[in-house]
């Protein structure tokens, strides 16, 4: 186990170093200069040069790479070119919106998808199954921004139950915050729930054909009992894999929903930073996302190793 852990950690570090170099180079070659952007249409190269010096943009590429990397390992992500506040603070504020929103929509989508998947699978081929899977098909097909706009028009402009967008921060109260995230979370959850329920259904159907279910049935358990006691846990594995993927996707991928609801989330920050050439923010977020994905994979690998002895032994050979 120790050797396996060491090997995995080493590859984790190498992945991160390679990723940081790739990210840095990609951002270096992007045309456009943050200082010039700040000066807009004004005819003023002198001030743009002063900005460049102020931002430390006139140092060599190597120098900037190492300042960035060593700063990051000690938690210093640098200062945002546009906002002029620490990048870590900026990202921290956004994570306070994006992480809860992601969790909220994942909880909603699981709460819908798992029962729907179970019901559809247990009544395979029935009218209920057809209707549920038909709805799931629609859920996959409906663009979530359109759904979001419909939600706003209905719940905000017509009924006035929710405000049409914005997020006051968690210090305005937990439930206030939750309320502000509800419509966006629903819009994000819909397509995810649709995908998840289809996977849940087919995964259960696969499991129900397994030998151990037949054994359980032979023992005298009803179909539903066999499903709940033995099938469900096994059927959850692909669902969890998809949930993991959805988590990393939603973290920065909710950008359209974020702009519709004017939420200060991570996705909009990345987009805006790219547009304004606030490259230090872009670099940091992308690296952070790579780090998060790599860590999740690392974590999953560790779990595999724990449940599957063959992996550990294989590593020791």
């Amino acid at each position, binding site marked *: 186990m120790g050797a396996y852990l060491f090997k995995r950690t080493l590859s984790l570090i190498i992945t991160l170093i390679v990723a940081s170099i790739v990210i840095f180079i990609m951002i270096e070659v992007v045309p*456009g200069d943050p200082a010039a952007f700040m000066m807009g249409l*004004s005819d*003023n190269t002198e001030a743009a040069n*002063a900005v460049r010096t102020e931002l430390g943009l006139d140092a060599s590429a190597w120098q900037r790479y190492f300042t960035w990397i060593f700063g990051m390992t000690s938690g210093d992500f640098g200062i945002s070119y546009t906002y002029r506040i620490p990048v870590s603070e900026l990202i921290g*504020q956004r994570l306070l919106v994006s992480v809860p929103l992601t969790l909220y929509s994942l909880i909603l989508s699981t709460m819908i998808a798992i029962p729907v998947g179970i019901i559809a699978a247990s009544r395979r081929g029935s009218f209920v199954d057809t209707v549920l899977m038909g709805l799931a098909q629609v859920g996959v097909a409906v663009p979530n921004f359109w759904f979001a706009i419909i939600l706003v028009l209905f719940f905000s402009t017509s009924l006035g139950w929710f405000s049409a967008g914005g997020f006051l921060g968690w210090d305005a109260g937990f439930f206030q915050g939750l309320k502000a995230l509800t419509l966006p979370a629903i819009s994000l959850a819909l397509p995810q729930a649709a995908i998840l329920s289809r996977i849940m259904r087919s995964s259960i159907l696969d499991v129900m054909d397994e030998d151990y279910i037949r054994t359980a049935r032979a023992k005298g358990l009803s179909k539903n009992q066999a499903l709940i006691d033995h099938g469900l846990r096994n059927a959850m594995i692909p669902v969890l894999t998809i949930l993991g993927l959805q988590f990393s996707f939603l973290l920065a991928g909710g950008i359209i929903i974020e*702009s519709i609801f*004017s939420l200060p989330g991570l996705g909009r920050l990345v987009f805006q930073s790219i547009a304004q050439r606030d490259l230090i923010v872009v670099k940091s977020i992308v690296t952070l996302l790579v780090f998060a994905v790599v860590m999740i994979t690392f974590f999953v690998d560790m779990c595999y190793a724990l449940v599957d002895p063959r992996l550990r032994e294989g590593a020791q050979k």
Partner: protein
Amino acid sequence: MIRLIIIILSVIFYPNLLSAQNKITIGLQMEPPNLDPTAGAASDIDEVVYGNIFEGLVRIDQYGKIQSGLALSWDISKDGRSYVFHLAEGVKFHDGTDFDAYDVKFSFNRARAKNSTNAKKYIFKPIVMIDVFDSFTIMITLDHARSDFLFNIGLGDAVIVGEESAANNVYNPVGTGPFKFKRWIRGERIELIANDQYWGGAVWLERVTFKFITDPLSAYTAMMAGDIDAFPNYPAPENLFLFEIDPTFDVIVGLTAGETILSTNNKSAPFDNILVRRAMAYAINRQEIIDGAMFGNAVPIGSHFAPDHPYYVDLTALYTQNLTKARALLKEAGYEQGFTASLKLPPPIYARRTGELIAYQLAKIGIDLKIENMEWAQWIDQVLRHKNYDLTIVSHVEPMDIVIYANPNYYFGYDNKDFQKIIDDIDHSNDKAQTEKLYQEAQRKIADDAVNGYLFQLGKYGVWKKNLMGMWRNYPIRANVLRDVYFAEAQ
């Protein structure tokens, strides 16, 4: 008893019944990058802070006129070189420090310093001397008379900042204005509160929130849901009619200082040929563009000057669409078969829509435009800095910016000695009538040379609640000054 309960309940649920509304939420499409108007060119900064947090010696009102600001009055010497400003006394910055003549000196010296990041350093270039007579009297001496100096120091780039707080203004702005900065939830809102100690007297509004809504449709739903009281410049002219039919809103179409032009690279062939540029001018149909791209909500222009300015001359009749003439000019220039050129468009919707119509109109005389859509940073790099373009469409939003045509290195590449002479004369002019004449001459000159295609003045599409009073109708400069804004009592 029952009465008492009803009163208590109504106060809880309808606090507005007791007093006129004193909180306002204003929608803006663009979030400012930082809050220091003296560092960086973003007019988005001025939209939040100008006249609200920061004030200058003079201020520009919604008609573009100069009013007294921190300087209550001023005397200009006969030769037009020296300005003596008499400053307001008892003014405090929001951090409690006192305002005096030394702050003015500090602010101007900071703006013209070598390492200054002020986007309009040129405002301060003519200053040769700043003399503090006493705490509230200051004299500024220029190299020679300048007709535009007083207006320029009314811009956001010349606001007065405190020596103790200047460095932090980017994220914690400290000024002398009627509102104090409270907090900024980046990506979402900026909140201001009334400054109880404001030297200019009490203001109506207690709390001000600027909310940033990028998406035009979300701007609409936020207005309809009542989240926003005012959108001083609503981002989608095509939706204005939805507010016009709604009795709760006022729709005010005003003017900005933004001349929307078909910028032309006067240095690259075939656009270095005046015949080609004139041919293009004859091919353009402004009304068709205004109707198609701006849904009728814009004013045509014939030169690079704001139509609501007193010095404006209407030159829209100089070139009106005449395809025969246009083709004849192209033939004379040797391009009977037409030619192909690129049209690089920045992201704003006005540019993208106008671009398509321009391509359609120029195609009629055989000019085949290849449209390239770009993001701002790319556009600034390629078009503005490296002048690597044929044609582009952009709105020049700075007030009185016809002077940019005098710089041969600006991206138009217009190098004309006669024009430069006119601008130099304006610079030295110390006589109002003469200045006006010169400005008109300047407008005629660039229109006659068809330096760029002059299309329309960008409108300001104000949408706000009917009982909201005192909002700016026009944007002579980008600013939402809230000092005199209030809600009328509900009828």
